[in-house]
């Protein structure tokens, strides 16, 4: 009896690495996203490399009305074991772009938060009914404290974290584990064009660490671990000093 990992936003570089990690441990994969050509390639890759079933599925986070049907489809295609969820979709337009164009700002909130809350909401009863399983969602260190550079993005990730806390509380009775990863910079398309970021992890290292951490249970966790002391200091900085920093 093999478990299934549903990967939401499966074309993300982090998600791709996580899917390989899960497949290397024998899990079946449901690859949900928008770039169907890429998802077909990934499904082929996972099934050839690891000999597991992998299936592309169309998923649009901002199309809230589609989520109930999507979840029904997931149930239909999941393997016989537990269904687990890795939520990776998200966008990070520049703060200035979001400031200038309310549609960009709203689009980010919809994708990163509203869409996540909606699809997790629809998945809740499935997880509850199976009495087990793991949900891993990608938050960000940016959600710890609003910084000049990207506080709207940070706000969506902070909202996601709070949502996940309550979601975890609700599902804990059913034995479902919910983990919010507060991710530091990962070397993906999202960060490629940004100025050099500190403690950058490769998607592969990050995914391996995420897999190990998910095996240890729910809650929230900084990855890579170095962000725990760094963010502890940043959170404790007195506001007047923090506001002067150009971070």
């Amino acid at each position, binding site marked *: 009896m093999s478990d299934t990992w549903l990967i939401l936003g499966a074309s993300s570089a982090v998600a791709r690495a996580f899917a390989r990690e899960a497949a290397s441990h024998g899990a079946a994969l449901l690859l949900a996203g928008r770039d169907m050509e890429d998802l077909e390639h990934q499904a*082929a890759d996972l099934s050839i*490399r690891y000999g597991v079933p992998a299936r592309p599925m169309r998923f649009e986070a*901002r199309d809230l009305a589609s989520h109930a049907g999507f979840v029904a489809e997931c149930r239909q295609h999941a393997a016989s074991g537990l269904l687990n969820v890795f939520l990776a979709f998200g966008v990070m337009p520049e703060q200035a772009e979001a400031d200038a164009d309310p549609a960009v700002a709203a689009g980010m909130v919809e994708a990163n938060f509203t869409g996540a809350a909606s699809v997790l909401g629809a998945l809740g009863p499935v997880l509850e009914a199976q009495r087990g399983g793991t949900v891993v969602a990608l938050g960000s260190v940016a959600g710890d404290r609003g910084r000049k550079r990207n506080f709207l993005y940070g706000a969506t990730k902070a909202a996601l974290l709070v949502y996940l806390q309550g979601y975890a509380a609700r599902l804990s009775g059913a034995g479902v584990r919910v983990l919010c990863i507060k991710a530091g910079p990962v070397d993906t398309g999202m960060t*490629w064009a940004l100025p050099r970021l500190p403690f950058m992890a490769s998607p592969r290292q990050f995914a391996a660490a995420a897999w190990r951490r998910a095996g240890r249970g729910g809650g929230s966790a900084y990855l890579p671990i170095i962000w725990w002391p760094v963010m502890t200091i940043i959170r404790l900085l007195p506001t007047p000093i923090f506001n002067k920093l150009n971070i």
Partner: protein
Amino acid sequence: MPDTLTAQAATRTTAWKQTALQGWGRSSLSPCLAARPERLRELRAALEAPEGRTLIAHGGGRSYGDAALNTDGAVVITGRLDRILGFDPATGELVAEPGVTFADLLEVFLPRGFVAPVSPGTSHVTLGGALANDVHGKNHHHAGSFGEHVLWFDLLLPDGRMQRVSPESDPALFQATVGGIGLTGLVAALCVRLMRVPSNALAVRRRRVRDLDDFLAGFAAAAGATWSVGWIDALAGGASLGRGVLETAEPAESGLEARPAKARRFPIDAPGWLLNGASVRAFNEVYWRRVPASGQQVTVPYRQFLYPLDAIEGWNRMYGRQGFRQFQCVVPPGPGEAALRQLLETVAAGGNASFLAVLKVMGPQGQGMLSFGMPGYSLALDIPARPGSEAIFARLERITRDAGGRIYLAKDSLLSAEGFAAMYPRADEFRAVREQVDPNRRLSSDMARRIGL
């Protein structure tokens, strides 16, 4: 789904950033705009380089010189396109994206009894890079080069069309792209036939070789071997000129217990003085004496025989900040034998601390218009980039050219345009194909400009 959402998802472009890249020899730093597509859609978008810049693909960055560099131009790094798309165990036919590496093939297919039919000396090479340099392995004398085993590839042409190219469908474009150093388009996928092997290990024989004549005789005697390679102590001169170790290998019938690869990392840029005549001489002496005078037979994993240098990640930092260059040529049998002697003497006389030099027997001429492989002997030497080393390269180029040989573009950073013209007789055929597929020269590289393509 609302239309605006679909439109937004589909118009995703690829991000560019200003950066600086180096060849594996690290002898120069090349500023450029670089994109690193994560998937096919982004590769297509990357074809539209910003500011009308020219473009070149960059695979694993294992070419020593400037084949994958485009100073002040644009570079598309293809390593993230690493999906395996299809595999047929009945035929060994593999379909893969261009960023799949030889390390991936070893990890995924060796346990199933398949290896790459031709493999360069490091597993970090991508399949796209292997195609573009039509690379050869230690079995070139009978397996030919990489392109011989490629059934077709999908080429993203400079005008944005995607074309499936096979030797039958479009022989000219096929032959221009195999070995075409990335100048005909971006390879988006390729189909290559893997080779069946009975186990995960090789039976390797090593023997000490006294001098160059002994080497050539040894290679002749080993013509039936599946793999063969010679390691020469490039500092040994006089009567021991060309002394070294000859290795031959055959697939082992029974395997070894599989152990995961573990590479050590070369920690720092070594100081420039570290590699001097004395230290290299000492190393080479140890390397030679490691093999008992009576010879040696061992069973080793494929990785260890095919990719010995991969055991130390970042070994190229050993040559310090100034970096180094590699010289590799092939010279035909007959006149080539004297040329090998001259080449080795030139390097030894220059007191240039080349670590091991590698000698191989080469088989048939590759089918690519700019393929390196041709019958004869191939000699490869590392030379630290120091004042005066360029003059040595000029002499090595002269000797190679006079012997009717050619210099390998995958390793090169100094070959002259005249030298290139003399060594690559099908260059005009190549130019004609390029004129057809890329009349506006949207694809270009430092190498292309240097050698006058």
